[in-house]
């Protein structure tokens, strides 16, 4: 038993340090697939790593003295939140820790006096306002199934989470779209520069701070996809496939839908997302009541 736990812990710790690397590959795959959908060749899959290494060596320019510290914290707290997830900790705490990472990014973009960066920061703030309630409600609905907020408890279920919470799973799709900064909800920044926004929150980052931000973004993507994979935690291989399928769906959505403004983003998550989750919880409770 003790050996088992320590083995798991070692596995988790290895996983934590691999998270940014996995995220980098996912970003590479993202670029390749997107290119193929648009009938282009696309860069090699390890292109994101080349980018980051090159960024790291560039001559350092900053927009304020706080900026690199905050960029580092963004990466650090994304990683912390993933670490908490990998160690089977409290779901709410994981979401709140992710909130620290996001706050760092937003403060870093708002505190430079750059119009594009501030615009991006404001919209990133609205992105958080859109998806945080959905994430918290997801954690609460998971509690209704497992009777605990600990991630570790999800692994003890006899049926996968998705069989209890199918609607919650669907509600997570827009959250993932927002978090990966994909169309239609790439309001704060996106992979390619938009006229009114340039690179949004990322505009004022360059050199090593941008490299840190990239690493943070990768980690955050891995963290969100791991959250998705918990929906089939009874067999983690299927769980990971589920996350990858959702990742692919998000890419397709990105290439199919044009951008929408922040109001429609907020409306989608605060209405459809929340209604789906509530419907699911009510259904869950009804099932329990009828069973009795």
């Amino acid at each position, binding site marked *: 038993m003790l050996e088992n736990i320590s083995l798991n812990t070692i596995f988790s710790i290895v996983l934590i340090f691999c998270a940014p690397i996995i995220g980098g590959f996912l970003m590479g795959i993202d670029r390749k697939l997107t290119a193929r959908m648009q009938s282009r060749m696309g860069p090699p899959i390890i292109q994101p790593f080349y980018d980051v290494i090159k960024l790291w060596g560039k001559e350092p320019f900053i927009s304020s003295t706080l900026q690199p510290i905050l960029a580092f914290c963004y990466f650090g707290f994304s990683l912390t939140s993933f670490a908490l997830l990998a160690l089977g900790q409290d779901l709410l705490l994981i979401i709140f820790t992710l909130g620290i990472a996001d706050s760092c990014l937003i403060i870093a973009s708002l*505190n430079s006096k750059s119009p594009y960066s501030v615009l991006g920061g404001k919209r990133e703030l609205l992105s958080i306002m859109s998806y945080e309630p959905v994430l918290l409600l997801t954690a609460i609905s998971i509690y209704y199934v497992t009777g605990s907020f600990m991630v570790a408890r999800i692994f003890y279920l006899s049926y996968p989470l998705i069989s209890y919470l199918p609607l919650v799973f669907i509600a997570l799709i827009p959250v993932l779209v927002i978090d990966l900064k994909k169309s239609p909800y790439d309001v704060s920044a996106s992979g390619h520069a938009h006229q009114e926004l340039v690179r949004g929150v990322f505009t004022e980052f360059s050199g090593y701070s941008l490299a840190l931000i990239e690493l943070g973004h990768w980690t955050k993507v891995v963290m969100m996809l791991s959250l998705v994979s918990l929906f089939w935690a009874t067999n983690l291989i299927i769980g990971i496939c589920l996350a990858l399928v959702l990742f692919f769906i998000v890419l397709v959505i990105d290439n199919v839908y044009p951008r929408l403004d922040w109001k429609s983003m907020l409306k989608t998550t605060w209405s459809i997302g929340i209604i789906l989750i509530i419907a699911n919880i009510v259904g869950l409770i009804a099932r329990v009541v009828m069973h009795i």
Partner: protein
Amino acid sequence: MDQELLIALTIGAPTLAGLGCLILNDKIARKVIVSLSAILLIGSSFILFNGGGFSYEPNSILDTLVLFFDLMLLVYFFYVGIKFKNILVIGLSLLQLLPVLYFEFILHGVEGTPTFLIDELSLLMSLIISIVGSVIVIYGLNYMDEHEEHLHIQKSRQNRFFFFMLLLLGAMHGLVFSNNLYWLYFFWEITTLCSYELIRHDGTEIAIKNGITALWMNLIGGVAFVLTLFIGYYYFNSIAIDEILKMYQSPVVLLFLAVLSFAAFTKSAQFPFNSWLQGAMVAPTPVSALLHSSTMVNAGIYLILRIAPALNNSALSYSIALVGAFTFLTSAILALNERVSKGILAYSTIGNLGLIFLCIGINTPLSYASALALLIFHSVSKGLLFLCAGVVENRVHSRLIEDWEGLIRRLPATSIIMITAMLSMFLPPFGMLLGKWVAIEALSSSYYISSMLIILLLVLGSAATSVYYIKWLSYLTVLPLDGKNFESEKIPWSYVISLLTLFGLIIIMGTGVSSVFNLLILPTLPSNYYTNIDASIINLNTGIGSFVTYPLWLIIAAMVFFGYTLSKRKGGTVKPPYLSGENVVDDPTVFHTTADGIAKIEVSAQFFENEFSNNRLLVLSKILGSIIIMLLFFAVML
């Protein structure tokens, strides 16, 4: 030491010190008196806290005195109503004066012994009031000098200011120690008097107007109190709160509790009674700080904390939670469009009080614990925020957050303290967020399908809360591009003491969360409230989740340290922002615009005035709030 003496000290010392300040209108005498009474107050509340609970019956002469002063007070309110020709104040004071006369002189009152009943809850409240309250009064010593200088006041009016500030501290102690409803009512009315006098202190037109608003809104609560006296007389033949709370949960008991909760909502400024606390921001900053953090508004919270055990599983309890949840969400949304710094803080206070009511209303042991945690952490953080806002206001001479841009350069020390206080309001692992976390876990585990609605209001409100705080604090960190260096800042000693005390408390209580739970919160839970909370040094375990505290603090320290080291090592030159290549050489604050013009870069803060108007939302939420408050009385009938 004698516990009776300590009670007399906690109530009497501030009151006497206040009288001293009133008579000796002198700068040095005031400093001595205020510092002495602060030391006495904090000392005696600490000793009381260590001593534990007891009951005490003072001399019956005091009963007569209380009656006498209470009548004087009501007559004074009546006089204020006549003077300012305010029909509401006249009506509401008469509605108290006549019934009280009838109650005392025709019905000859009723027993309510013991007059003072002190338990862990009152002791905890006393600790909060005396520590945070004293710090704020000490801060006021310097602030009022600056304030009067700024307003060019020749003859100092600080004597009446400090009299009412200190009287408020004494009255709050009386309020949390009283078990006799009549005494409680008396102290309740004194806090109303103090808030009215303090809000109108500056004597400007708006100050008097807002003072009157505060007065009549709080008088509604007083009327509710008088009603409870009569219920006590006719149905229970007692006005001792502990006895009534022990009674079988009959409709009359529920009505009694509903009326008390109604009074609590007026004092704690829940919708639709929010406007008095909003208006209180015209007063000098120490007043807002005192009213918002540790006194006034906490009186309402205390009352509901007191009656919560008698409410168990009633519809009434659920409606209290609903009032709180509604207020929490609405005030967070209203704060998004607020431009005045103190206005944002006021909405934040109203919202957090709502959150605390929500937790008490859910009424499980876990949610009761979270209510206490929120109460403690909120008092300290909000007190500090107001004190910082006051310092800034006296330096910058503006209350608009847009004028506070780049404050970190002009007032680095104050800004850093203020930013920490803001972070402590919404980010982990600070206490407020920890309290919210316990609240969410408590709500989820309360297993009512109806609690879903409350959870929903909570998560939406909490998202909006982060938005307005992040917006504000990043505004403080904006560095203007003119390349000037950080300025050094001179802070007077009384500011240093008060700011650092509260700042230290936030950090100590934040890092030592497990001790806060073990020493302050868990012993204060009512005896039949059993929780699984296990506060160890590494994490706080609720039985259904665990909050990693220490490791998270270490991680934060490590992040800041390594981030700082990295930024020092890599360095980097500060470059002007990206402006589509239209930058002007040598001046980073402007850019080339059309027709070879040159324009200044203007970046505004985020408001949502196109999306919704605060005035309309306020009207709407007052109507909705009134309907929800009416639910209290419907809930009694269920």
